[in-house]
């Protein structure tokens, strides 16, 4: 589904990603772990097409197409979804209206009829239950005045509504208490099928108790130093990130 | 209309009474002559002038003043030294009616290279730093008072803190204005220069001892080099019949930080124009203020926060309490120039109107020419919160007590930011006295 080859990227002249290789297939869950500032969010944002980051080398192939030249909205309509580490507040724009617009854009792309507000309301109620979110938050402005936890749930709600093929979840677990973490994780699990894939960016091992990754990659200083199965996360928890850098050659390749 | 030809203009009349200060340095003499030329023939601004809309100088123009130096033996009380704050025990300059008093001043224990001295002496010695900065910052369009001070000033304060030096204790500039029969005018001048990475706290204190009429027209210039830090506290406790018209300009360089706390309590008419220019990146300025008026006092603050470069922040909290027939005016301008991207500017003006006969005027002003900025201002005019009054009453306090407490609380957040404990104490007493005397509070109860 997604193949990243030798990806280098910079922002304001600083190289942040220094040769990333990654292959994600349908049905897989990949966890990207690493210390703060290692480039995890950068990787997710680049896949989603954030304009601040410049790809200087390498390629990102998604479903056989090169993503790099595509506008972010085009990528989104093709099924790339990103749950933001810091969801953005948009005053004056209602949450439910945004989701309906976004959903209908995808319907249009597929040649299907858009849903009117009433139909959409029926559609969204189920999804609300999935993340146990209060319906009131639908009428509020996007993320404005939401608590940290509400913002993160709202991201997963949007994921549930838009049904992406590739979900990039950037630290969706950070800042959540145990109950919220469980709810969000279960939501993500329910959305996970053999046809779609998840790239789960996280700083902590905790969420992996709920979501079992097929692969774990350790990103340090813009490079993937080590890749492995779910047991790698446990080792990381035990030994810390230094253990990875001390034990691998720079340029460790991921499968 | 008055016949200008026949009646000499107020400023001309005043200028005439002053002899040239007699600075031997050509540069200073020229600066003074130029300033005198600028105001010669100039009328005082009227309320038709936008910047003077709410501040009439009519009564001032009718007063007759003599230069303060002319008063041969001012009535200085024996305990004048009592006005020195304990924190400033070792370094303070004192001025009686604007004239430097060596006897009351003390500049002990200053770190190597620090200068705290009478400006007139420093200029006479030809101090390069003083000559370089003097007159460079105190400039206002159309304003007669900054040039008035420049034209005739003689004594004042000069403070210089060299590179990487920290003056730990506050430096106090004490201006004692005595109770005299003659109406006098004084124009003290302050020049404060902080070199790279320097740190200092300066307390400027204007005290009127009587309830006489005089005109106090001070000008302060502040120049902060890179990475320096300065805290500036100004207390204006001039006589309740005095005119206090002051100008303050601060020029702030890269990575520097200037914090000003101005408290205006005295004067019949107080007008202060304050300007902070953030000349380079990563600078910060605070211009906080507290104003309390009562009787027929008028207090007018005009401020300019000028953001010229990116990534700077500014903070302004200006609070006014209005009682009796008092009037408070706040005109706060924030400029964000085209290059000043990522500016974060905050301004809040709150007015507490205790009496039904006072007036509050607020004109906060944003002028933004850069797009990636976050600027906000808020202004409110109102009364004590009814719920808060009620809450305290249910706890058994009398209504006038609750009002006193809440008024005190209103003033408190400006006072609390002031880093000199004995000034905070002094101010707390002033606020207490003010609320205690407040007729409005008593009437309401």
């Amino acid at each position, binding site marked *: 589904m997604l193949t990243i080859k030798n990806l280098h990227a910079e922002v304001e002249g600083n190289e942040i990603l220094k040769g990333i290789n990654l292959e994600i297939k349908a049905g897989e869950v990949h966890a990207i772990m690493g210390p703060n500032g290692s480039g995890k969010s950068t990787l997710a944002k680049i896949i*989603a*097409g*954030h*304009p601040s980051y410049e790809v200087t080398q390498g390629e990102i192939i998604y479903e056989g197409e090169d993503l790099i030249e595509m*506008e*972010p*909205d085009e990528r*989104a*309509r093709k099924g790339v979804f*990103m749950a*933001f580490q810091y*969801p*953005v507040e*948009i*005053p*004056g*724009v209602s949450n439910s209206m*945004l*989701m309906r*617009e*976004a959903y209908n*854009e995808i319907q249009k792309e597929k040649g299907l009829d858009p849903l009117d507000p009433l139909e959409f309301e029926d559609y969204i109620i189920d999804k609300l239950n999935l993340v146990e979110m209060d319906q009131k938050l639908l009428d509020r*402005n*996007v993320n404005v005045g939401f608590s940290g936890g509400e913002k993160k749930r709202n991201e997963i709600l*949007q994921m549930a509504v*838009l049904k992406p093929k590739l979900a990039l979840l950037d630290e969706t677990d950070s800042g959540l208490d145990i109950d919220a973490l469980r709810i969000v994780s279960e939501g993500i699990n329910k959305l996970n099928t053999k046809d779609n894939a998840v790239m789960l960016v996280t700083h902590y091992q905790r969420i992996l108790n709920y979501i079992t990754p097929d692969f774990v990659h350790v990103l340090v200083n813009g490079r993937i130093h080590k890749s492995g199965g779910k047991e790698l996360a446990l080792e990381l928890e035990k030994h810390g990130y230094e253990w990875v850098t001390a034990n691998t050659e720079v340029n460790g390749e991921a499968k | 209309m008055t016949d200008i030809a026949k009646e000499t203009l107020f400023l001309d009349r005043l200028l005439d009474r002053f002899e040239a200060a007699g600075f031997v340095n050509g540069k200073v003499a020229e600066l003074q002559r130029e300033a005198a030329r600028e105001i010669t023939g100039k009328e005082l601004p009227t309320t038709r002038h936008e910047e003077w809309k709410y501040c009439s100088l009519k009564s001032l123009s009718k007063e007759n003043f003599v230069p303060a130096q002319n008063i041969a033996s001012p009535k200085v009380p024996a305990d004048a030294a009592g006005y020195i704050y304990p924190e400033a025990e070792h370094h303070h300059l004192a001025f009686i009616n604007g004239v430097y008093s060596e006897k009351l001043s003390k500049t002990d224990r200053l770190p190597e290279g620090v200068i705290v001295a009478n400006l007139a002496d420093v200029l006479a010695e030809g101090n390069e730093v003083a000559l370089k900065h003097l007159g460079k910052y105190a400039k206002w369009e159309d304003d007669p008072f900054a040039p008035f001070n420049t034209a005739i000033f003689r004594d004042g304060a000069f403070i210089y803190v060299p590179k990487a030096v920290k003056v730990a204790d506050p430096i106090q500039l004490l201006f004692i204005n005595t109770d005299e029969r003659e109406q006098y005018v004084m124009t003290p001048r302050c020049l404060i220069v902080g070199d790279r990475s320097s740190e200092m706290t300066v307390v400027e204190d204007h005290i009127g001892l009587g309830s006489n009429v005089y005109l106090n027209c001070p000008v302060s210039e502040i120049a902060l080099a890179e990475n320096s830090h300065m805290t500036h506290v100004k207390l204006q406790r001039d006589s309740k019949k005095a005119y206090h018209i002051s100008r303050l300009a601060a020029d702030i360089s890269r990575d520097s930080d200037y914090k000003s706390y101005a408290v205006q309590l005295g004067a019949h008419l107080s007008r202060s124009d304050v300007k902070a220019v953030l000349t380079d990146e990563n600078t910060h300025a605070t211009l906080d203020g507290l104003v309390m008026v009562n009787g027929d006092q008028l207090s007018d603050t005009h401020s300019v926060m000028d953001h010229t470069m990116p990534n700077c922040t500014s903070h302004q909290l200006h609070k006014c309490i209005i009682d009796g027939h008092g009037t408070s005016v706040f005109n706060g301008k924030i400029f964000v120039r*085209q290059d000043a*991207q990522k500016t974060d500017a905050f301004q809040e003006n709150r*007015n507490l*109107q*205790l*009496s*039904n*006969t*006072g*007036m*509050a*005027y*607020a*004109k*906060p*002003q*944003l*002028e*933004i*020419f*850069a*797009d*990636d*900025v*976050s*600027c*906000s*201002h*808020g*202004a*409110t*005019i*109102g*009364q004590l919160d009814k719920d808060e009054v009620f809450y305290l009453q249910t706890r058994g306090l009398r209504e006038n007590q609750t009002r006193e407490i809440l008024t005190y609380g209103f003033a408190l957040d400006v006072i609390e930011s002031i880093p000199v404990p004995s000034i905070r104490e002094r101010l707390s007493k002033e606020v207490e006295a003010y609320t205690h005397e407040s007729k409005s509070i008593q009437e309401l109860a």
Partner: protein
Amino acid sequence: MSDTQTIESLVKQPYKYGFKTNVEYDYFPKGLNEDIVNMISDIKEDPDFMREFRLKAYRHWTTMRDPLWANIKYPRINYDKIQFYSAPKKKPRLDSLDEVDPEILETYEKLGIPLSEQKMLAGVAVDAVFDSVSVATTFKEKLAEAGVVFCSISEAIKNYPDLVKKYMGSVVPYNDNFFAAMNSAVFSDGSFVYVPKGVVSPMELSTYFRINNEESGQFERTLIIAEEDSYVSYLEGCTAPMFSSNQLHAAVVELIALDRAQIKYSTVQNWYSGDEKGVGGIYNFVTKRGLCKGDYSKISWTQVETGSAITWKYPSVIMKGDHSIGEFYSVAVTNDKMEADTGTKMIHLGKNTNSTIISKGIAAGNSQNSYRGLVKISPKAANSRNYSVCDSMLIGDRCGAHTFPYLEAGNNTSSVEHEATTSKIGEDQIFYLQQRGLDEEDAVSLIINGFCKEVFKELPMEFAVEAIKLLGIKLEGSVG
């Protein structure tokens, strides 16, 4: 392409209403003097009181100067070069559309304001003013049944002289300001509305202004009187052709609300604003003021200002009656070299009066957008309240946003609260919306409409849709 560039290219969109209609005019000498004022009075067959009003205003005007305090810059206007009166030659008989020049009817059709019986906008009565003259008013009979008078001001002067005499100049005196004095001397037409006691107007009333003549100024005058317990909602729209010269528009609007009456006045102003380089466009100097004369009365201004090279406009409310309410909701968009200095005055005189100001300014291109507002609580206006919010949004770094609020309060039972913020359309906001599949244009317009939402919700439905579209036109376009 950076986001800023993209947003800027989004805000460029050609002016749709820039065509000129070919009609013949009764030409008039240029400049302003007593003879001209008398000639206008002659043509209008003014009664004596009207002629005197004009002459008094003219004489006062000669002693006044252009106001210079606003934050706008324009070359001094040479009033000798302006034609102070202009009317299409074919004189319409006011009660029959057949008599209106077909070219003019077509013009209004093109503008989306059909005047012919079959096509009239349902639920909205329209008074169409072409250059300086009212050419048609629709739904007159239906309104007459309810007792509502809706006609041109010229007709009102003839048919309701007492009302006109009593109220004209009572809110905006002839000597109020330079442009009001000028208008009082030369106004040629405009709309008149009278809602009798207890009547709720059965439909929205609307005037559609069109400047067509390149050399004439437009000086219309509107007077709306709402008697006790009545209600009326009035809409105003404006467009003009594109000329490389500037046209002067100096209107006066007076509203009077008696006890418990309510007047809602909405404007969508889309005069030609000049081109990218600042050539051409309307100079819009307008005095709009409402008087809440009666207790419990309410006047509400809503404006969407998207056009004019220069806008100088402060719709105000004087709250004289106790418990009266004044409101001002505004969206002002400036682009290219436009300059807008607009806002309101809320004057609290009565007790327990209440005012609200919501102002949203959007500046793009090289434009300057200023909010200027006065809130004045007089010592007698006990227990009064004002709440103001003035938000600005900048698009690009060559424009300016300015906020000049004046707050004055003179008693200790009232409160004034003012807040202002400045922000930009953040790159992160756009990216977030794009990540959800919206294209950049939609993302920008969504954010802008969100920014203006509180104002749009005050517009009558029919107008809200148009206003949102208009803003879209002004601020969207092809991503280039």
